[in-house]
């Protein structure tokens, strides 16, 4: 049993996804979906522990040996990303039970959960597989189901948002396939470990830089790095709340994982950053993303859209960390993957609570919510503090490492930009807080606190974002070791 864990984390949800569609009734479908995500959650924890104890795990699908057959290869980075996805999935599914009922029509409930689990499976699959074409397949599994999920939003603009995402996402995925194809044509292998071994021999050939470029564009499109982020704000704004919370904390994170995987493991840091000078591209874009997207966020009056722009800025932080290509920088990037998943999940979930009671997340409808929905807004403040990077929250931990990485390189202006980004976060978070706490509500509104079914998952993430801010040694340790694995300097 335990030797099958690497594949079980993917195939059990894959088996349960159609089952959820088959059972038809949304309640039963929810049970199936919850079983799938909690199963994956448990397995992901077990995998992290095993990888920490024993090192990289390899699993050969169908018993075909590695470079020929498909290999599932789980190192610390994969296990950590899988754990992030599974954790958020497990919390989001609890949240979905109440939230989706309010926002998605009942006859589509079963299909919703089926698509949800498929998306979940795809994201897990990307993180555990050791085969580049398999990555593409899982990427499409997750993306296609994500498009469908977004289209289920109440607002009709959800449809156009999903369409826009579909077009841009497919272009991104196709770019990735082109990159993979060109690499295959030079090396004749699709296995990540094997590719990493064979690429240096042909690195002088012009095909490899071309493949590299296609992959860069494709992946940055998927992770919504500025200026390829245009699909993201609408998609996050109009998707059902549970979907926003889930996708915002997982989909882009997995895309960042792809970035790490391709540029560090497949091409190697030396090729990516010294030969191709990737940092010269990524770092300015990341910095611009941090500043401009935070500024744009300030001017939004739909809070979900505000948070979506903030997400683009936060992706900038992750990419910035990676662009240092040092252990500290990559550690910061990986840490922020996890930390941002927690806080953005909590924030979007809090907005889902508002959506549930108020029916809108526009700023002018949130007047006086601090009194009427104290727990919800307290959760928002908690997540917001983390976004700002106040001590004892996860956001602080990320910032600590990021600034450290910048200073280590002597790039103090970069560190200053990071700080400036936090200050912009103060403004957009406080904008919401002021409306919720300082403006009087309409007296005839009958708004009550959100139900426990929504509050408990929201607070679970808020508390986690405080817990891992107070005791960050575990996550920081894992992230450091993961960074060492990626840079090949670890034991």
């Amino acid at each position, binding site marked *: 049993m335990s030797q099958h864990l690497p594949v079980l984390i993917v195939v059990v949800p894959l088996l349960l996804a159609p089952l959820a569609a088959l059972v038809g009734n949304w309640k039963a479908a929810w049970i199936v979906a919850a079983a799938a995500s909690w199963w994956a959650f448990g397995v992901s924890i077990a995998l992290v522990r095993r990888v920490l104890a024993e090192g990289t795990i390899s699993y050969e699908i169908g018993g075909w040996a590695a470079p020929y057959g498909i290999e599932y290869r789980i190192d610390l980075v994969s296990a950590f990303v899988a754990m992030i996805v599974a954790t958020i999935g497990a919390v989001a599914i609890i949240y979905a039970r109440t939230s989706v009922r309010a926002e998605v029509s009942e006859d589509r409930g079963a299909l919703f959960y089926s698509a949800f689990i498929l998306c979940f499976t795809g994201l897990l699959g990307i993180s555990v597989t050791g085969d580049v074409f398999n990555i593409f397949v899982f990427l499409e599994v997750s993306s296609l189901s994500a498009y469908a999920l977004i289209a289920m939003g109440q607002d009709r603009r959800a449809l156009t948002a999903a*369409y826009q995402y579909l*077009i841009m996402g497919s272009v991104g995925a196709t770019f990735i396939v082109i990159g993979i*194809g060109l690499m295959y044509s030079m090396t004749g292998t699709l296995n990540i470990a094997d590719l990493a071994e064979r690429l240096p021999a042909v690195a002088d050939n012009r095909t490899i830089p071309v493949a590299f470029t296609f992959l860069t564009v494709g992946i940055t499109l998927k992770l919504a790095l500025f200026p390829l982020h245009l699909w993201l704000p609408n998609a996050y704004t109009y998707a059902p709340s549970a979907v926003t919370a889930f996708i915002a904390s997982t989909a882009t994170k997995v895309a960042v994982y792809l970035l790490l995987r391709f540029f560090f493991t497949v091409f190697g840091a030396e090729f990516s950053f010294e030969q191709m000078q990737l940092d010269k591209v990524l770092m300015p874009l990341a910095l611009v993303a941090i500043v401009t997207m935070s500024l744009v966020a300030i001017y939004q009056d739909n809070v979900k859209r505000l948070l979506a722009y903030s997400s683009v800025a936060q992706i900038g932080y992750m990419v910035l960390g990676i662009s240092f290509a040092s252990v500290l920088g990559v550690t910061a990037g990986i840490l922020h993957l996890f930390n941002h998943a927690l806080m953005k999940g909590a924030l979007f979930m809090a907005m889902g609570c508002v959506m549930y009671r108020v029916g809108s997340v526009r700023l002018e409808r949130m007047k006086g919510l601090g009194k009427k929905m104290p727990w919800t807004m307290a959760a928002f403040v908690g997540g917001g503090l983390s976004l700002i990077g106040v001590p004892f929250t996860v956001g602080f931990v990320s910032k600590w490492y990021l600034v450290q990485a910048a200073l280590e390189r002597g790039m103090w202006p970069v560190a200053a930009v990071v700080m400036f980004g936090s200050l912009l976060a103060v403004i957009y978070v406080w904008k919401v807080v002021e409306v919720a706490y300082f403006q009087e509500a309409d007296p005839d509104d009958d708004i009550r606190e959100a139900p426990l079914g929504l509050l408990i998952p929201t607070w679970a993430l808020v508390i986690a974002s405080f817990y891992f801010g107070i005791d960050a040694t575990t996550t920081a340790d894992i992230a450091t070791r993961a960074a060492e694995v990626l840079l090949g300097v670890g034991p």
Partner: protein
Amino acid sequence: MIALGLFNYWAVILLMMVGFYTLIARGNLVKKLIGLNIFQTSVIMLYVSMGKVAGGTAPILVEGAEHVVYSNPIPHVLMLTAIVVGVATTALGLSLVVRINEAFGTVEDDELRDESL
């Protein structure tokens, strides 16, 4: 003449550009999808032509014969998957277009933009 010897790649690039251009330049959502399809097809061509070994036969085991040159089957197999993905994307895209048409009464990008505001 080397450039002409790689005519398959030229064809792929041409298709790719046609698809990409349609995808970007056309305002009609259905036409965008068609562009996306052409774009994806060009990638399929890229892979398939990549797997062809000059003088090779279809990769089916020929009983008894030794030293037979086969084309590389893996790119073809991969493209089978890519085709499935393409079909799924198109189907999903078209169904979205149908619903957009029902919700907004138009499938033109510029009109939609006005509607959304």
